[in-house]
């Protein structure tokens, strides 16, 4: 490797170069004092360069490597974050996976934020019930996060978890849920509100520290990653670089701290040909490579669907889901609200179904 590719200041690089240190091998067996003498760098600078070349405690190439066998064993043990909707879980292979970056995109009102909130709650599922017993970070850039909705979904989720633990008729399962309450659920969601993209970038930069302080965090949601980047950003090339840099940072976080990263994305209208346009995920072509998995939520015939658009490990699949009072579910709401008229369209898939906000309709 060339010394030119070292992450060192340009001036140091130039001095190294002039003194003939062009290959990394040239720097392997030299002391800082020698290097300083030969290159005209200060001793501090020389020491810094040597640290970059031979970091302490680095075992070289083999340090971070795992064989596919080891990874397979880890993957098998890995628990996923359930969406609380069996049909979605099925196409997701059991839920959202830690250590991966998953993007959720869809039209306004299809339930992106709802799904985000649901995940922030269900990541707290007790370990005894096959959950992660984790905490969540929610970075809200749109102001669409509703505390009372969280509470409503948390109450429903608690009831479900308790029922499940009870029906297993094993005391230790019941005990596992006894520590849970609406308060614990709410206090296990860490919330950031970013009002512009500078704040958004800053939050991403402070996450490593937060994850160190709160090692139980298993889920990180940015809702949405798009909003601020769709305005005030004239330099598209810069935007691409900033976004790509951010996504690489998030991937590192996901891997290093064993968290699932969920990015919510908007859709945008793209013109194709004459007088024709289609809805595509926002932020452009280059961003579409930034996420490991991409899930698209859409409407078809008045029904919400989730679709796995890309994933290295999952097959493409489509599954219906419902947004109910309780949260994201595979079946329409069971307990109707008092004001809901029982007569309302029994043949329908459900009275909680919102009409087509979505993608179908209108030719």
């Amino acid at each position: 490797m060339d010394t030119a590719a070292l992450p060192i200041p340009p001036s140091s690089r130039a001095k190294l170069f002039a003194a003939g240190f062009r290959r990394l091998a040239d720097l392997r067996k030299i002391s800082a004092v020698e290097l300083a003498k030969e290159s005209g760098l200060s001793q501090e600078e020389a020491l810094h360069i040597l640290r970059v070349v031979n970091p302490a405690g680095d075992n070289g190439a083999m340090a971070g490597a795992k064989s596919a066998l080891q990874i397979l064993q880890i993957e098998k043990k890995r628990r996923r974050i359930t969406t609380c909707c069996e049909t979605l879980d099925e196409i997701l292979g059991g839920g959202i996976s830690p250590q991966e970056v998953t993007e959720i995109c869809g039209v306004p009102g299809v339930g992106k934020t709802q799904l985000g909130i649901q995940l922030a709650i269900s990541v707290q599922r007790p370990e005894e019930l096959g959950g992660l017993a984790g905490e969540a970070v929610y970075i809200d850039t749109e102001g669409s996060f509703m505390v009372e909705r969280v509470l409503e979904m948390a109450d429903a989720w608690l009831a479900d978890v308790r029922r499940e633990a009870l029906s297993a008729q094993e005391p230790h399962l019941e005990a596992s849920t006894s520590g849970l309450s609406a308060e614990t659920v709410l206090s296990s969601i860490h919330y950031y509100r970013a009002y512009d993209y500078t704040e958004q970038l800053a939050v991403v930069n402070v996450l490593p520290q937060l994850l160190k302080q709160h090692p139980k965090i298993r889920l990180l949601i940015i809702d949405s990653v798009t909003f601020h980047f769709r305005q005030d950003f004239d330099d598209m090339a810069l935007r691409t670089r900033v976004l790509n840099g951010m996504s690489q940072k998030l991937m590192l976080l996901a891997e290093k701290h064993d968290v699932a990263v969920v990015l919510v994305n908007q859709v945008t209208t793209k013109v194709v040909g004459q007088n024709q346009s289609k809805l595509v995920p926002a932020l452009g072509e280059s961003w579409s490579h930034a996420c490991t998995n991409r899930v698209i939520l859409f409407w078809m015939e008045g029904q919400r669907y989730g679709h796995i658009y890309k994933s290295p490990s999952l097959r493409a699949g489509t599954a219906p889901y419902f947004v109910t009072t309780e949260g994201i579910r595979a079946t329409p709401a069971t307990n109707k609200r008092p004001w809901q008229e029982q007569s309302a369209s029994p043949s329908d898939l459900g009275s909680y179904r919102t009409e087509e906000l979505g993608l179908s309709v209108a030719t």
Partner: protein
Amino acid sequence: MGSKEISRLNIEGLVAHRLKSRRLETAKDVLCKTELDLVELLDLPADVVAKAVAAISQNVAPTRRTVLEMYMDQQQPGDIQGGHLHTDLPKLPTNLPSLDDALRGGVPLGSITELVGPAGVGKTQLCLMLSIFATLPTDIGGLDGKCVYIDTENKFSAKRLIEIATMRLPDSFPDEQAVQHLTSRVLVLRPNSAIDLLTRLQKLEEAMIREKAKLIVLDSVAALVRSEYGHDQLQQRQDLLGRQAALLKYLAETFRIPVVVTNQVMAQMGAPSQQPNYGFVEHERKKLRPSPGYEDSTYDSSTVTAALGTKWAHAVNTRLVLERHAGQRYIRIAKSPMAPSLAFPYAIAAGGLYLSSSEVHDASAGGGTSILNEGSVTHSKPDDRFLMDVG
């Protein structure tokens, strides 16, 4: 926050000096650069740069709160009984009973609620009603505050405001004095251009603190931008709307108040549209039935959609659609984080909007779908062409 100057951020020594000499003056300047850019620009080792970036980020990043803390802040002090959390947070009621039930009490605080509908359907009437309710004392469901009414179409009528107030709530407005008190608490702004509107919104923060306003009404969000920006300036228009949305959200959340905006509808031309093209399953394309009794000839194309496009629609938290079918007016919940999609028939009388019956329509059942949400179709109208994402 992004414009926070580095000089205020406790960054010292060489880094601060270099940043200054390279004209990187605000946090935004620094955070928009990649680490490599900074190493190159500042001629400093990568770890020094990383530390400085971390310090700046720490300073600029919003504070972290748990949702429980947020809940406690939003709850009225006396409301947490016996340690049990309950889900109903304060709202601004519309005083349309079934609608309020569906919305869990009314128009939510801290977010944007949009009223969409064709001209003359009653959007402004509903805005006037909400302005009145916001000024009422809290014990009868009001917010006990002033209302900032931003009128871009010159449709605000004080006379109508008083009429609605006295007809609807004779008990609260028994005499001239009460009415006067009301009118003094509704502050009307009339911006004359979209840029003017934006500047006023930027300055509204101070007025909000000074006047203790509890509601912002923007009637309408579409009028100015749609008249001022032609099809050739869509990018600028979208930028402006985006900034407007961000400001409205900021005001709503900072002061925990409802923001109500109205939006026009636009006709969709009948060009064939497609399913969004995600490359999966062949969808059966559904034709939207022309609604037979649809009165307004302006919208005879039978498909109308909320104006301003998808980007704006993403910014709206709750969307209520006001529309007419076969002579009957309906108010329909089209997007809400809380409520299912329901439609309620209503009529307009001297006292404003009244629900016609206790009838509730499941809006998903058909009938009430003539105003589409923006995301519903692929538009042929150039009105919605914007933002080609450049990679």
